[in-house]
């Protein structure tokens, strides 16, 4: 199995606040890893260190063989292959759905306009929104916006997808449509790292679940290992609150 992401003794602090205290993590090609843990435990920070939206304070992050903690690495090139989906969608507000999806492949000269257009339409079909191509983001529901955001990330043909609580800003009736897209993606063999509060999704889709607390991995294993068999008191306490 190919290693896609390797995190070695990753540390991150904001001023004096130590958020990540030595994280070790290896993610293999095609794996779906779900990260769970209490609020403020450092889940988002860990995810954002994987594409250097946050600079690590210590340790190493190797993605696709590139050491992105090395300042000499061309981070923009590495990011082309790492898709990210945010809690608040972050669709480009001044662009239509189609333009949102086409922007990066065209601007980075990865595709011609025609290719990008074709890819965008295909992706919109895949997420069930081909009729919304000409809409602006604010005309869409949260669930629709998040599906467009996933399509936008997929347009770059990434080998890794990062999700930071993609459904927690959604009304309950829209959670399902986004999770369905993510499940389909997982079944296609995408390498996925998802921070999530959707324990049902983690149980069903994850190959591995990681429980983080106070910037440390406290528990790690198959969904069964973590959800049913854990002996870690912190994990038990957390799971009792959310399940």
């Amino acid at each position, binding site marked *: 199995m190919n290693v896609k992401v390797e995190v070695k003794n990753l540390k991150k602090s904001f001023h004096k606040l130590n958020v990540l205290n030595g994280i070790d993590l290896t993610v293999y090609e095609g794996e779906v890893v779900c990260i769970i843990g209490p609020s403020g435990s450092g889940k988002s920070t860990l995810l954002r260190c994987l594409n250097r939206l946050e600079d690590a304070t210590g340790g190493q992050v190797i993605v696709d063989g590139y050491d992105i903690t090395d300042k000499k690495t061309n981070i*923009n090139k590495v*990011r*082309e292959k790492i898709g*990210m989906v*945010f809690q608040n969608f972050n669709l480009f*507000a*001044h662009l239509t759905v189609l333009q949102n999806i086409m922007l990066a492949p065209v601007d980075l000269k990865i595709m011609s306009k025609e290719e990008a257009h074709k890819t965008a339409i295909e992706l919109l079909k895949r997420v069930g929104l081909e009729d919304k191509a*000409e809409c602006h983001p604010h005309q869409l529901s949260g669930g629709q916006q998040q599906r467009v955001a996933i399509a936008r990330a997929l347009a770059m043909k990434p080998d890794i997808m990062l999700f930071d609580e993609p459904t927690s800003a959604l009304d309950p009736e829209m959670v399902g449509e986004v999770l369905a897209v993510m499940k389909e993606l997982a079944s296609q063999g995408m390498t996925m790292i998802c921070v999530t509060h959707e324990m049902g999704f983690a149980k069903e889709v994850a190959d591995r679940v990681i429980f983080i607390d106070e910037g440390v991995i406290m528990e790690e294993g198959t969904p069964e290992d973590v959800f049913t068999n854990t002996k870690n008191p912190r994990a038990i306490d957390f799971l009792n609150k959310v399940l």
Partner: protein
Amino acid sequence: MDFTRTILESTPLLLEGIKITILISVISLIIGMVIGLLMCIMGMSKNILLKAISGVYIWIIRGTPMIVQAFIVYFGMPQVIQLFNPSFRIEAFTAGIITLSLNAGAYLAEIFRGGIMAVPKGQTEAARSLGLSKSRTMLKIILPQAFKVAIPSMVNQFIITVKDTSILSVIGLADIVNKAKVYVGKSYQFFATYILVAVYYLIVISILMLLSKYLEKKINYERKGRS
């Protein structure tokens, strides 16, 4: 007081003046936009020197009256340059453009900065996560959105600049106020003449306001779009 006579007599003079007023405003605003954008980007860069240059420039312009700036550019600067090049002269028109551009540039830099700050951080993060460089993100994602936010303040600055040209009459710029001064010097029709000058300004600035209304509507329409 003879209003009709004043109108007839002063119109050619005042029309000439308002042309100068409009011309100098337009040129200064175009240069001011370029300076403003440059200073705004310099002010937000990580380079301490660039940041300092932009900061000091904005500080000086905002902290001094324009009439003093005009005197420095028109009377002061030539004195210094003449030490090296005795034949150097500056025209009121050129000095006026320099003063107005520098002035508008400083305020526009602040307006642009405000517009850029108003774009949510998530927009940058999304663009960077797709692999766009800092400068491409600025160009394709941040500036178009910042521009929309900044339009009302920009138009406001345009209006201020048009009105501020009148200050430049003190260095002898042949703008409408100066022409009016010349006319009242011989006719003593203070009331009628200055009312007329006010009307000219009102017309020019109303056109500006209408233009901005139209622009804002157009952008709103685009944002609402068709679904």
